[in-house]
């Protein structure tokens, strides 16, 4: 959706509000209706709903980040109950932290510690019932020491080296805008200009991040009263004034001024989290949609301003409007999306139906989730009685390391090497096979149901049963956890 179209949508919203018109209510049913209508226009038939066991696996992995408990009895497919479960908020916070502050291979240990603390802070705030608007405001407008204003660690990581370095992650993660190239030149295809990028950077020009003397990994984040953003724009090195990505008068009718505002970040966050802002709610909804359906309603996730004005973009605007009306409530968003029929549909191999959300698309599990699924499969989801916390922590760290960097469905050589050769993993799998006893046929069925939430096909039984009969249960377990079916949610 172009910037003009986004602004038109925001203007329409404003006009409707002024006229007292209620926007159409947003619900699972309204989302399904929009998807089915678009599917019919494209001549696509929706896939049948997945079976209860497959849906329970999907829901458990998406809502709690682990496989369903074997002790759960009948498959649990109630989306609202899954979101009310105590396991939901910690996992939602983990995913939010990963989205706002993704871990990178070249991360220093100090940054990793700050990122982990940031995740714990997000979880505490979500538990307190805060909406994403409040969280974003506290992250980007943080003032104080990072051990007290813990959302400040984001700015410690991304804003300490200047406004331009802060502008990039802010645009991408909070606004769904990829403006990296506009740092040096106007976007070659999109609408972002150097003025846009550096205008955004100017909101962070007065940000000051300083280590607190004598305290390791504690930083003071504040705002200097003066200081301007300087950059080379169109060949000229000069001061750049703050400039919002979209300029509707959302902030009391006044555009931010150049020198008089002492807390530019506060002004920016007021604009960011205004329900009429055309970017923030859409960016957050699009991200969660992408997690649950394997693809954003608008792609790429961080080029909201370049997407066509089509049915999908309109559906995104519709859900975003409901999200803003809910108080930017993450539980509301998950509950609504997880309750749709689109979410419950079965697999189909054709991409057209997957793209239209009329069939399920396999989605790679995040490495941490995959690790937890492995621990659940081998019966180590929770600490064993008497297991020392440091032993447990070491196990979890090791499992995380096995799957670190596993981002797609293809088995990369490095991961395959680890999975083929790490004695710790092979030992854990051997230990896990002890949970599955009985005659080979029954044992194979139990292994498949635990790992993949389905029974083996006839073709699979022909290959796997002889292995079990030859007492090669570890190989069977290995193949299951190495498969793309185990490594994905579907």
């Amino acid at each position, binding site marked *: 959706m172009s910037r003009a179209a986004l602004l038109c949508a925001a203007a329409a919203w404003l006009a409707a509000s002024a006229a007292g018109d209620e926007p159409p209510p947003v619900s699972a049913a309204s989302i399904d209706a929009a998807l089915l209508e678009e599917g019919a226009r494209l001549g696509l038939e929706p896939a049948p709903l997945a079976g209860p066991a497959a849906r329970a696996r999907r829901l458990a992995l998406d809502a709690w980040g682990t496989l369903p408990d074997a002790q759960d009895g009948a498959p649990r497919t109630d989306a609202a109950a899954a979101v009310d479960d105590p396991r939901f908020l910690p996992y939602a916070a983990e995913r939010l932290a990963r989205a706002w502050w993704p871990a990178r291979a070249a991360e220093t240990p100090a940054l990793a510690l700050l990122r982990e603390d940031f995740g714990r802070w997000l979880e505490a705030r979500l538990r307190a019932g805060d909406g994403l608007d409040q969280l974003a405001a506290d992250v980007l407008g943080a003032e104080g020491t990072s051990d007290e204003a813990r959302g400040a660690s984001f700015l410690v990581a991304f804003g300490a080296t200047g406004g331009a370095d802060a502008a990039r992650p802010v645009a991408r993660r909070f606004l769904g805008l990829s403006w990296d190239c506009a740092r040096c030149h106007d976007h070659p295809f999109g609408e972002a200009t150097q003025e846009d990028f550096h205008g955004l950077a100017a909101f962070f020009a007065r940000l000051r991040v300083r280590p607190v003397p004598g305290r390791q990994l504690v930083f003071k984040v504040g705002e200097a009263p003066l200081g301007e953003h300087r950059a080379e724009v169109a060949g000229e090195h000069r001061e750049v004034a703050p400039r919002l990505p979209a300029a509707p008068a959302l902030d009391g009718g006044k555009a931010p001024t150049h020198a008089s505002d002492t807390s530019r970040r506060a002004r920016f966050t007021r604009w960011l989290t205004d329900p009429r802002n055309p970017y923030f709610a859409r960016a957050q909804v699009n991200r969660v949609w992408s997690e649950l359906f394997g693809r954003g309603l608008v792609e790429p996730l961080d080029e909201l301003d370049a997407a066509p004005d089509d049915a999908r973009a309109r559906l995104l605007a519709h859900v975003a409007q409901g999200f803003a009306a809910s108080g930017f409530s993450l539980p509301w968003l998950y509950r609504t999306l997880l309750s749709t029929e689109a979410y419950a549909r079965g697999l189909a191999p054709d991409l057209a139906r997957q793209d239209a959300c009329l069939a399920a698309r396999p989605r790679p599990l995040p490495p941490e989730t995959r690790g937890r699924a492995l621990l659940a499969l081998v019966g180590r989801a929770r600490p064993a009685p008497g297991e020392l916390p440091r032993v447990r922590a070491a196990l979890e760290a090791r499992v995380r390391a096995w799957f670190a960097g596993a981002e797609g469905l293809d088995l990369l050589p490095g991961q*395959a090497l680890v999975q083929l050769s790490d004695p710790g993993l092979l030992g854990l799998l051997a230990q896990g096979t002890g949970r599955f006893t009985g005659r080979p046929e029954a044992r194979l069925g139990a292994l498949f149901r635990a790992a993949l939430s389905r029974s083996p096909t006839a073709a699979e039984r022909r290959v796997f049963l002889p292995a079990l009969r030859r007492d090669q249960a570890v190989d069977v377990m290995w193949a299951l956890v190495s498969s793309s079916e185990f490594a994905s949610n579907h």
Partner: protein
Amino acid sequence: MTAPCSRRAFLRRAAVTALGVWAAPRWACAGGDPQAALILIWLRGGASQLETFDPKPGTPQGGPTRAIETTQRGLRFAQGLPRLAARADRLCVLRSLRGSEGDHDRASYLLHTGWRPSPALDYPHLGALLDAELGPEAAGFVSLGPSPARGGFRGAAHAPLEVEGERAPGGRGAPGFARQRELLEALERGFAARAGGDPQARVTGFAQARDVLEGPVRAAWELEAEPVAVRGAYGASLLGRRLLIARRLVEAGVAAVVVEAPGWDHHEDLFRQHAPRIDELDRGLSALLDDLQAKQRLSRTVIACLGEFGRTPTINPRQGRDHFPQAFSGLLAGGGLRPGVVGATAPDGSQVVERPLRVADVHATILERLGVDPRGIQLAGDRPVGRVDEGQSIPEVLG
């Protein structure tokens, strides 16, 4: 060019020789030169150019670091590098590198791919590019430590084999692999039929890992096979051991090895904390140069030693130096490159004053020296993309 010899064929041939890796050098495939290879030493975190290859003694920016003479006339290194100073006549010192990225992640991506991070394309690591372009003669790409980039749009088949630990990767033996593969393929076939996708692509990595576990590459980690004197020369540090593994990997036919040398990001107490890292680098890199030369491999192996950026000439109040991509140094050696110094920085180190270089220029030079035309294109899907981001080979070092 040597005659074609598939990676698998080479590994198999090597595996059946009684003497393992030592009896299966690269030229076992065909008469001629050994496989061209790259060893990229990544000074992760950003080494200080003022404490290594571009000291500024006697200036406020130089700090307490003194300079020492080297075997190249007029070239001085920082005091912690006596061994490299004695070997400077084999080094190309690049003193005028300039980057645009001051963030670790972004600068690391730039260093390893030659491209700035882009939301539009995931670029391949230089090692992945070499692995792909050198064709079936190259036996892969190994990263000793985490890699900030992987196969990118060249695909998972060229992704690095990332090995974090220092132990030889273990294995269950060929019978175990055959069983595992049969089971895995059965699952992938069934899943692809229900959900789409290419089942073979999903197990490519398995085959590559199995090659490593079954072939001579695995023996590269068995450092006890090396004479004590050789191990001693590299030093007991993580970097020293990784450099020795890298040499053995190159001998086993690996096209590109990244050696991660962690621990250079010193915003505080830099002069004390950099010292042990510098000593490890001095010892390990010197040993690598000597070792490759003694084995007559130096002329076919390009060694590059770089951080993702340099450090500020200004010493901060915590006696540290912060990130500084505007002017930093790196080394190239081997590969028949001509030793010398390229570029210069201002007396206060604040800027490049002569022959500015970009990381892409270094990539172009490496590619050219290893027989891959840096002006060629590669395909990202159906989109043609350059091999380097407008980089120009550095004629001063190409000789």
